[in-house]
């Protein structure tokens, strides 16, 4: 195992994929965030407060720059998890090369870490959340994220241990166990407490582009790490031995 090379290609893949996420969001997601913020500004003005438009424009530019930095950081941190999972699952993943294996694992992790939590607690644009409930909503979202992640880890271990005795039926058993855990979590966990006061059109469009750009991020991450892996081959250890005959 070339550990340092592995860590480097993992984090570089994540930093690149995350930066691209921040850049794509400028085009795909920002129009909806700007619309939502315009609603907030209208509400502020309607309540009698004044809004400095020049200042707001500058502030929004600063935040859009922050979105790209945040993409780099989030991409790097998610790739750290992706790299660990990739090492332990590479032999079990289908696919003839690491690029395909990476893409398949990225698809699974997009589903487990993003899509499932988002189906229970969907992304919301500004103008929706109540700042008073942020900690409560964070704890709900995190609980869903952790349940989905650990359920997936659990069924992956189960899948492996059933390899000897139930080679075929495990392909049905394992997804079923995961689905039951997620269904239970969906029923037991309370709903997002915040009232939605913006148009359902804006809300749905925002959620859809959010899922699309996160999907693109995961896809790029998987392909990049797989490509670097095929070049660097961090799983091989070269030992040069000098033999005297």
């Amino acid at each position, binding site marked *: *195992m070339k550990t340092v090379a592995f*860590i480097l290609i993992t984090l570089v893949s994540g930093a690149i994929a995350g930066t691209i996420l921040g850049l794509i969001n400028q085009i795909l997601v920002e129009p909806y965030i700007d619309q939502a913020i315009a609603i907030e500004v209208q509400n502020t003005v309607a309540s009698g407060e004044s809004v400095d438009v020049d200042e707001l424009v500058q502030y929004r530019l600063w935040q859009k720059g922050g979105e790209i930095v945040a993409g780099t950081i*989030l991409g790097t941190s998610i790739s750290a*998890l992706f790299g660990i999972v990739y090492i332990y699952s590479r032999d079990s993943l289908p696919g003839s090369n690491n690029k395909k294996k990476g893409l398949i694992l990225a698809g699974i992790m997009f589903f487990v870490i993003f899509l499932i939590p988002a189906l229970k607690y969907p*992304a919301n644009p500004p103008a929706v*959340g109540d700042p008073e409930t*942020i900690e409560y909503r964070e704890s709900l979202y995190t609980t869903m994220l952790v349940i989905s992640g650990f359920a997936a880890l659990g069924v992956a271990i189960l899948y492996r241990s059933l390899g000897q005795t139930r080679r075929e039926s495990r392909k049905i058993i394992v997804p079923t166990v995961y689905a039951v855990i997620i269904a239970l979590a969906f029923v037991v966990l309370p709903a997002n407490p915040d009232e939605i006061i913006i148009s359902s059109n804006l809300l749905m469009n925002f959620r859809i582009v959010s899922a699309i750009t996160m999907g693109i991020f995961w896809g790029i991450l998987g392909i990049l790490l797989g490509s670097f892996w095929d070049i660097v081959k961090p799983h091989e250890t070269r030992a*040069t031995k000098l033999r005297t*005959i």
Partner: protein
Amino acid sequence: MSSVNAQIVKESSGLPKIAVGILLAILLFGMFIVGYDQGQLFSLVEGQKAFDDLWMHEFYHDLRHAAGFPCH
């Protein structure tokens, strides 16, 4: 007497525990500052001011929404 260089290519999938630890630390730290921080990190040096400024929340704000984290 002659010497032979033999290159042995070994495959191993074991990741040193220290590497797992470093990567998990990066995961938690990055997720926290982008998705969760409400002033906690800067409050270590700035005190109460950090909770009023919410610098990280504001700077990472748009991605926090776009990546599905709770916000506002």
